[in-house]
């Protein structure tokens, strides 16, 4: 198992300022401190829809890299996204899933199928171009740069543990100022 923040730091080292990143729930609170940038797309509602927002962004801006930092509970709420994304096949979409086996943002209860379900297996079956799974941080750090240089859609399952308590100020994710900043930044480039 890998520490989530360390995984996110490894990803951030290969993310350009111009890339769009959609982090979800607990991951989002870690990510916005690691990579504060108006092109973090933080307002995706709920129910696992971040990857679907990402598909819209990727189709609308094929010139930009779009990176989703999903959660396992979120993905379970929107499993069809794997098939829809593979069908649309955007070359610029990278779908990471932080798997900790819990609905962390809703009390840490276990997800159904915890430890049994294979998210990488589902993504592979759905038709993603490339699929990876990591549980060793050193190996992930070595490979993440090359993965983000591939053609999408790419799926990466990260076996993680939470990095500890967070201060969850949801206005940092859902406030209107966040959406305006994103819109302005995307419009500018």
């Amino acid at each position: 198992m890998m520490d989530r923040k360390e995984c996110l730091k490894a990803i951030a080292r290969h993310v350009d300022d111009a890339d769009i990143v959609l982090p979800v729930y607990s991951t989002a609170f870690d990510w916005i401190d690691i990579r504060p940038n108006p092109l973090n797309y933080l307002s995706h509602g709920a129910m696992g829809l971040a990857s679907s927002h990402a598909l819209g962004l990727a189709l609308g801006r094929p010139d930009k890299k779009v990176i989703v930092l999903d959660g396992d509970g979120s993905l379970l709420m929107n499993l069809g996204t794997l098939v829809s994304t593979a069908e649309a096949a955007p070359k610029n979409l990278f779908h990471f899933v932080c798997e900790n086996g819990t609905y962390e943002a809703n009390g840490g209860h276990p997800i159904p199928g915890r430890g049994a379900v294979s998210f990488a297996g589902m993504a592979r079956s759905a038709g993603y171009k490339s699929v990876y799974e990591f549980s060793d941080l050193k190996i992930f750090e070595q490979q993440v740069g090359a993965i983000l240089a591939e053609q999408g859609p790419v799926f990466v399952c990260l076996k993680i543990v939470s990095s500890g308590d967070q201060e969850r100020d949801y206005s940092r994710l859902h406030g209107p100022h966040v959406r305006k900043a994103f819109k302005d930044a995307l419009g500018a480039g």
Partner: protein
Amino acid sequence: MPASASAAAESAAGGLSGDSIIREIVASGIRFVVSVPDITTSEGLLRPLAKGAGPKLVRICKEDEGVAICAGLAYTGQRGLLLIQQTGLLDSINAVRGVAVEYSLPICMMVGLLEKEVGVMPRQSKRYGVRIVEPILDAMGVGYHNIEAQTDVAKIRPAIDAAFRDNKPTVILIGQRPS
């Protein structure tokens, strides 16, 4: 939210032209049609859209995905249209609430009304699943437009333009099968 409760439905026997609806969609600047198949619009809209050289068709598994996809497209400046059935709209209420209404995004939905009787306005339908659609949209503060007769097709482009101008969702209710 004015359901144009005109007498249009009563004179709807002439039917709807799918080609004319598609022309309005294209004229509205729609570049992506995001769809889960709907039996009302299957032959008159979805099948020709799938074959045509117009908007790109994005096939999805479930309607709430489409709300989010259209949101992402809207941020990029691209216009998307979600083509679905009212069962899918009802299933996507939370996405419409959160993404379209609370985030003030121009999510445009064209919704076929499964099993609605031709010539009957949705609120007067004997079908529970049809009758409740407009009151639910009213409760959510989502505007909608009834396309019952050919003359109603002219409402489509202004509805889509207004949604993008005002950053609000809009629902276009297709009341009978377009030819």
